[in-house]
């Protein structure tokens, strides 16, 4: 039996008296593309932040690769292989696009104080490889020509693309994407999802919040529907679209 990559059990989080996430349980398996949909304020982003270690859950348990990660710091969770792409891009705006990518790279020799000064040859060789990888990903999201410009000069859609590209650069085992296609033209949005699918064949799992259902449902293997802090239904995209509850919650139709 294959173990779940990520297992969330009865996780709750409240702010003041409001439960943003209320007893959520779900599983994510290797190489799957999981969608998370639901109305605004239903707790999707909060759930992501809990997985990332940015919020501590009040109750419940989160296990990644069989290891409890509830009380780990975000940088430790990154080390284990969970990476996030934020809904509102949080780029390093004064750094170049390429430097933004390089920050995210995993296992860097040169981000230790001692190594950066005294083992320069070692990280310089590594950096050459990383730059190559970064430029390939940037090529993919059509940002390569901006590689040496400050990230602050990018347009809104391009910032979003860089946010996603940075997540891919981090070589995650599980990549959380918070509305990756928002503000991006449909052709490019589809192209990115197509590319994510290629990555998922290599074993990366994706957990995606997305309001552009027409794109998401084409690619996702499993959909979780969230409302008022709970997972109300889940299933294959086809089953969800056929489910009347989904329409009532999400589209406001009877």
């Amino acid at each position, binding site marked *: 039996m294959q173990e779940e990559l990520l297992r969330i059990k009865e996780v709750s989080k409240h702010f003041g008296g409001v439960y943003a996430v209320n007893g959520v349980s779900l599983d994510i398996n290797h190489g799957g593309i999981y969608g998370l949909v639901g109305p605004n304020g239903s707790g999707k982003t909060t759930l992501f932040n809990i997985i990332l270690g940015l919020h501590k859950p009040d109750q419940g348990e989160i296990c990644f690769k069989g290891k409890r990660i509830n009380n780990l710091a975000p940088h430790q969770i990154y080390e284990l292989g969970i990476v996030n792409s934020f809904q509102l891009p949080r780029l*390093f705006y004064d*750094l170049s696009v390429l*430097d933004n990518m390089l*920050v*995210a790279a995993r296992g860097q020799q*040169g*981000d230790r104080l001692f190594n950066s000064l005294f083992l320069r040859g070692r990280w310089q060789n590594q*950096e050459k490889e990383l730059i190559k990888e970064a430029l390939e990903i940037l090529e993919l999201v059509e940002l390569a020509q901006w*590689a*040496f410009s400050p990230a602050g000069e990018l347009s809104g859609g391009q910032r979003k693309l860089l946010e996603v590209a940075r997540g891919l650069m981090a070589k995650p085992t599980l990549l959380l994407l918070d509305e990756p296609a928002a503000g991006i033209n449909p052709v490019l949005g589809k192209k990115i999802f197509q590319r994510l699918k290629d990555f998922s064949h290599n074993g990366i799992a994706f957990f995606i919040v997305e309001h552009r259902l027409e794109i998401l449902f084409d690619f996702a293997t499993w959909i979780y529907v969230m409302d008022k802090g709970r997972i109300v239904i889940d299933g294959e995209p086809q089953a969800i679209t056929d489910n009347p509850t989904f329409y009532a919650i999400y589209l406001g139709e009877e």
Partner: protein
Amino acid sequence: MGPLIYSCDIIVYIGIFGIVCLSLNLEYGFAGLANFGKVAFFLTGAYTYALLSQIGLPFYLCLIASALISAIFGLLVSLPALRLRADYLAIAVLAFGEILRLIMKSEKWLAGGDWGMAVSPIFPYMGSYLLYRLENIGLVFLCLFLCFLVVQLLTNSPYGRAMRAIREDEVAAEALGKDRSRFKAQAFMLGSAMAGLAGGLYAQYLQYVLPGMFMPMVTFTVWIMVLLGGPANNWGVLLGATLVEIFDRGTNIVKDYIALPVDPSNLQYILFGALIIFVLLFRPRGLLKESAIRTKALRLAHNARRAVKNKGSQ
């Protein structure tokens, strides 16, 4: 004293404060830490030097100890203080500097209290004030060069990239695997070490230490240098140190030669205030803007890209 000796005196000051500026640049310019307690570590270095040289340690050991003990103080302060939000951090370290100064002022047994204590210079007086200053210029600029090298190498590496990322958005950097507490504590420690080294050099150059030398104004002067020159640019902050020192010491020297209606030292704080307002209004990023990260691999990639572009346009 002639103008030549005065100029040499200014150069020594530029060197010493240049080191402090580099240290603040590492903390604030690159890592985004608002250290308003710079003078605390400058003081620690100066008093460490004074006390250790008194018991007869050779000068190089005193200087190393100045840096080390300041680094330890920096680390100790940073561990609780870095948990605070930026503005609280600023207030906490500002208070720390004042506490240290008041301790040195009231504990008379330790270092002479308010009267301070004499410090033996590294270079003994050989009958020439000029020679004394030239020797100090040599030593101070050697130290400045070493500090510059360290900061420059550090900030142009993946380490420096992570530091700048934390400055830009610490939540995003943390989510990308950068342990912000580690980076901040290390920046604080290294910065404090450099400030301590500068303090040691300062104590032996002036040949005395007393609490009055370590008023909070010292911290603010260093901030003006960094903001004026350009945070996150090591050449910029040295430019800032040079300009502010020339202005600061220069006005004090000019009054010996020209009869002015007011004593410029009384005007200095006002002029400094005005300077900061002008800088923030018209050059909010300082005279020189942030220097981009430069590494060998980035340069190669950049050149390759430019070559492709040129080919395309032909």
